């Protein structure tokens, strides 16, 4: 029984985890198509979070860490400068610590034509 339960728990991890993602809104929006590379990305969370790492991935480039600057305290809104890497799909992956002590992570993406 223990092994069956372990298998069930692992399959749950494989299918759904998406550990805690309280992201409410972003600009550009997730899945949006933009005419030009935005100069910054913004993220708005439902609860306070302290961002610890944000990476932008573009098909033709290695992942780039976005500069958090002085945005190193707990807040719900963040605006980070984005370095343009040309047309294509951008994926922004963020990590941070929630106000309940849980590490949080999530991602969103947009396309530049």
């Amino acid at each position, binding site marked *: 029984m223990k092994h069956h339960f372990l298998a069930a728990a692992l399959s749950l991890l494989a299918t759904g985890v998406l550990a805690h993602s309280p992201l409410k809104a972003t600009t550009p929006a997730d899945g949006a198509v933009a005419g030009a590379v935005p100069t910054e990305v913004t993220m708005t969370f439902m609860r306070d979070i302290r961002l610890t*790492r944000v990476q932008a991935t573009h098909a033709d480039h290695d992942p780039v860490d976005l500069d958090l600057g002085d945005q190193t305290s707990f807040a719900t809104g963040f605006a980070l400068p984005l370095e343009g890497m040309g047309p294509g799909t951008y994926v922004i992956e963020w990590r941070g610590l929630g106000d309940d*002590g849980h*590490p949080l992570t999530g991602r969103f993406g947009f396309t530049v034509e």
Partner: protein
Amino acid sequence: MPDLWDVATVATQFALYLGVLAAAGVMLCAALFRLDRYRGLAVGFALTGLVAAGLSFALKGAALTGDASGMTDPEMLGLLWDTSPGVALGYRIAGLGLIVLGACLGQVGIWVAVVGAGLAVWSFNHVGHIAARDDLALDAVLIFHLAAVAFWIGILAPLRRLVTTRMDLPRAADVSHLFGRIASLVVPALIVAGGTLSYYLVGSVDALVGTGYGQSLLAKVGLVALLLGLAAANKLRFAPALMRGDERAAAHLATSITLEWAVVCAILLATAVLTTSLSLPT
């Protein structure tokens, strides 16, 4: 395949729950039932909890950076130490340390260890979904819930040791009878506490059946029902038979306790998945 970090996080959280709750529970039961041979168990579980607490803290650092560098990154570990995970780690080190110290001091140290058990359980009031709500009544319900779970888990190993030692059977009968009497009051309150916490976390029947969090919670409730069935068999059949001097009841009780351990481990694993990997319904 699940991410290796997710698996490590869940496994560490499981070991943390097992170590802290079993160590605290063994000390609580040792004090309540005047148990003799509990020190090795308490120290073993406390050391398990200490290692898991340290590893869990480091894994949180890794989660903040997305790679192993976070486990030793001073900025990430400093951030964690200055916030609620650091407070919780402090209580765990102090509490589990006192359990080890108390167990080494002999009979005099039992109350030192009980204080340590309280601190270790209290640590869970500083991280997690309930703690974030900042509601004193819910905090009290959570601590009662954890203390009652610790009490239940804490009796398993010492009682199994008693029922498998022929010379200790009269003592085993007394302990199982007394535990059953206390449990008949504590367990209904434990169920009410668990139901209250679940209601505040999930919020609706739709969320209970329609989200991964709710479905995992339902699986946990099913396991708890199984555990209650085993506990009922112990209290209503095996413990009374043991009181009458039926030696076969000792073997049945030992088997039942082994099954209880398996179900308890499954419940703690389900709880570890719930608290580390699944989002609350919004």
